[in-house]
């Protein structure tokens, strides 16, 4: 009886530990961000090229299920995320940022702000994103990310977002972006304007 209990406990402990390790390696528990696993990084905009691919391994599949359920495969859409500004500092609602960019080689693109839980922030400002239909086919554009609406120009509201990240979506991207994102992606720049308490 004692021996059976010992074998049972050993089996249960091993099973639980193996399962917990799988969750940890997938970035579902612990402090590992999903972005740690990105295999593409273009000037701070990171992406996981195996998203929604049938060839994705179990870790990727688990991670995407948690952080990007119903994402499209990259021939239809690619997704880039960034959590820091151009100086590598975490994005937060207590600071204002300038987002600048140019035309994108895709049918349509957008940039959306999400809070630390991968959800749209709980504000009613109706300024959750900017997109190609708003910006037009301009070779250069700029937008402000802040808690309050700027006097002029496109705006993404960070009110009630806490620390946040941005997702750049490119729908029907040009093949060059898929083949060689570092050379082909016109990555938007993100610089801090000011933070609360700063003059």
């Amino acid at each position: 009886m004692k021996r059976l209990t010992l074998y049972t406990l050993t089996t249960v402990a091993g099973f639980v530990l193996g399962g917990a390790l799988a969750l940890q390696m997938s970035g579902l528990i612990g402090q590992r961000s999903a972005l740690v696993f990105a295999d593409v990084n273009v000037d701070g905009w990171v992406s996981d090229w195996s998203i929604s691919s049938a060839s994705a391994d179990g870790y990727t599949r688990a991670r995407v299920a948690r952080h990007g359920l119903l994402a499209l495969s990259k021939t239809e859409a690619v997704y880039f995320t960034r959590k820091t500004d151009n100086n590598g500092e975490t994005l937060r609602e207590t600071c204002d940022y300038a987002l600048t960019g140019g035309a994108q080689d895709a049918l349509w693109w957008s940039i959306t702000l999400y809070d630390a839980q991968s959800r749209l922030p709980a504000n009613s400002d109706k300024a959750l994103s900017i997109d190609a239909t708003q910006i037009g086919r301009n070779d250069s554009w700029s937008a402000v990310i802040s808690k309050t609406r700027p006097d002029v120009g496109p705006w993404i509201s960070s009110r009630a977002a806490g620390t946040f990240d941005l997702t750049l979506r490119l729908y029907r991207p040009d093949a060059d972006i898929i083949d060689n994102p570092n050379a082909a992606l016109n990555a938007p720049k993100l610089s801090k304007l000011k933070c609360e308490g700063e003059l």
Partner: protein
Amino acid sequence: MKRAMLLIALFCAAALAGHVFVLNAVPRIIMNKAMTKMQARGVPVHGFALSARTTQETQTVVRPSPDLAYSICLYDLKDGGPLTIYAAPYDGYASVSFFDARTNNFASVRVGEGDEAAGAKLTLHREAQDMMESPGRQIISPGRKGIILIRRLAPTQAEYDKVVEISKNDRCEPAKY
């Protein structure tokens, strides 16, 4: 000594089994939970439902795009019969995408291009079915259950209102032949 070796081997084997089990189970559990939530919010099995315009209050999945209108059909091919799917044409970006219960995006069709210029007519089958009689483009589901999603570009309320009208013509139903 012999018993210690046996316990170590047992522990390692159980850890490996737990690892593989969790990796396989997590996507299915999350997808199943999402499908259950969608059903609770009125998304039917074998029928498209247009989601409310995406806001912080209406989001049901992580990282939704507020610029897209989503029409969702849940499917369950338990009876083996194929499904007829029709995505009505739209003056703007539109696509139909298929996800299995393991979250794989196993097919995507662009609406408004080529053969799908007048809307996308598709037939969804379980694997190894006879597809000779089926109309439109043929798609095979790797599993029994999943989600079909029509995305249409609608960044403004006016464009979303257009989608409300157009989406009334979308179809997701058992094939009638």
